């Protein structure tokens, strides 16, 4: 059993004040609520969920771009939450992030050479005189021409800028990368290019990925294991094939049923049997007591009848329902 490279325990990220100087009653948004997660060396862990589920926030909290409200994030044994200032900055090159928006995440007034060279410079990874040639090497690695180094971000397309973002992350020589919706802003025909690139780099450089996205087909393709989030909590976690073949949590089941498949025959089949999820995601400011999904869950009455548990008052525990398959649902406790 390999040791996890990253171990997240009881991580919560709350925004807003419980009752501050100027604010009235509780306006707390529990963007991430008591998450426990492990990422093993060399794997790709996919993190999926719809908007507002907290997946981006979780990714950023792990990397300490937001300081978590409670909990610990162990990177190779060091608790990152406890680190501050210079100590934290020194370690930052070992874990990096790839951002969603290729237009906003690059400084428009910096040359590509400087953008990619910056992590090398800050962490003194190479002698100054060699930085330029190292930058060019990385550009080649991500599929861009060497002389792009002298240009500015606005001269490039979305897909190329995303490659530059990847190059910048690689320049820091990390072993753990959190990719926050890295392809959502790109055209479909470019998405495949970037996915292939990321996979190649992972094999070449022995990287570990936390891949956050809302497109399950993409995440399934690239991930070894997948975690599904809903309203700040992880509600299912298992390997990618099992998630599709045997989804346990009712939300996961609804999510899979709702995703369109590019095959007209299959779609017609599914339509006949499809149970559409009703209603909307509750506001994260006012999450339901008990199970977060109870307001929309089609199997709530089943649980009430068979197990005499009221999902709206009792929150389920995140537990191992089958070997290697974790979920938070009363159906399986």
């Amino acid at each position: 059993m390999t040791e996890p490279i990253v171990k997240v325990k009881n991580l919560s990220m709350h925004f807003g004040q419980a009752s501050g100087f100027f604010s009235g009653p509780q306006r707390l948004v529990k963007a991430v609520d008591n998450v426990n997660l492990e990422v093993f060396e060399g794997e790709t862990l996919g993190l999926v969920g719809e908007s507002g589920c907290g997946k981006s926030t979780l990714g950023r909290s792990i990397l300490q771009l937001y300081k978590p409200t409670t909990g610990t994030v162990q990177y190779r044994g060091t608790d990152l939450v406890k680190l501050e200032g210079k100590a934290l900055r020194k370690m930052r090159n070992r874990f990096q992030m790839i951002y969603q928006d290729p237009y906003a995440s690059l400084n428009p007034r910096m040359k590509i050479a400087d953008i990619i060279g910056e992590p090398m410079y800050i962490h003194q990874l190479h002698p100054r005189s060699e930085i330029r040639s190292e930058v060019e090497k990385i550009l080649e690695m991500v599929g861009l021409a060497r002389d792009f180094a002298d240009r500015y971000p606005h001269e490039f397309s979305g897909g190329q800028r995303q490659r530059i973002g990847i190059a910048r992350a690689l320049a820091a020589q990390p072993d753990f990368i959190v990719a926050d919706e890295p392809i959502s802003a790109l055209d479909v025909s470019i998405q495949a290019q970037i996915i292939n690139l990321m996979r190649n780099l992972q094999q070449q450089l022995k990287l570990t990925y936390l891949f956050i996205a809302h497109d399950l087909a993409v995440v399934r393709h690239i991930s070894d294991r997948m975690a599904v989030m809903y309203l700040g909590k992880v509600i299912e976690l298992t390997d990618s094939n099992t998630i599709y073949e045997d989804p346990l949590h009712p939300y996961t089941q609804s999510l899979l049923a709702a995703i369109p498949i590019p095959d007209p025959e299959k779609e017609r089949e599914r339509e006949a049997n499809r149970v559409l999820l009703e209603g909307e995601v509750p506001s994260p400011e006012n999450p339901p007591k008990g199970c977060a999904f109870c307001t929309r869950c089609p199997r709530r009455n089943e649980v009430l009848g068979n197990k005499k548990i009221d999902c709206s008052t009792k929150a389920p525990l995140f537990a191992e329902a089958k070997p290697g398959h974790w979920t938070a649902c009363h159906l399986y406790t």
Partner: protein
Amino acid sequence: MGFILFLALFADLLSPFAYDRVYFDRVLLMPFEHPEHPLGTDEVGRDYLSRLIYGARTSMMVSLSVQMIALIIGLPIGALAGYFGGAFDFVISRIIDIMTAFPALLFTILIISVLGGGMPTIIVALSITSWIVIARITRAQILTLREQEYCTAARGIGASEWRILFRHLLPNAMSPILIAVSFGIPTAIFAEAGLSFLGLGVNDPIASWGKMVGASNAYVRVYWHLALLPTLAIALTMLGFSFLGDGLRDALDPKQKIRV
């Protein structure tokens, strides 16, 4: 403006006469009356053309110094307030609010009456009101820009807060700041002219367009050139710098591409 700047710089060489050369026998000549004085003379016999040329120097010296000082003081204060926030920002913002509420001209008059007249005093007085503007704009820019994702990315790669401020934020914040500086120049020119008009500005015998207009008060009914020429000079110079500011704003605007 290039012309005005040129005049200001080379006033000594261009001017046919020293600005304080007095010809008591040639008092109050109209333009083109005397072959040596194409624009006439003033009430003590000084050549008006020369005075106008030297006036350019005065205007430029005052306005440029004021804006430079405003930039040197205002930029760092605004940047630090915007970036680090907290108590420092609170204090600075209140200072900015108070100073903005104060009528600027009255404030400068107050300072001048305390410190006495003369060029250095004017520059100090005008700078005090000008740095506020720069600080306010800088702070606003920094506040907006610091939420940009490339700042988060810089933090992510381990950049220190100072590095983010100087290497990432300030270069991107510069354009509105520079535009404010370039619009501040005509403001300062006008302020100096106004103060000198009131007699609170530069001392005699230094030439200043505003002073020239003010001094012409008693004679203007007949000797209209005494008032008209400096006024024209002020107006044209201000217009020129305003156009410069406009052009600068258009040039520095991020290229807007048509999105369909």
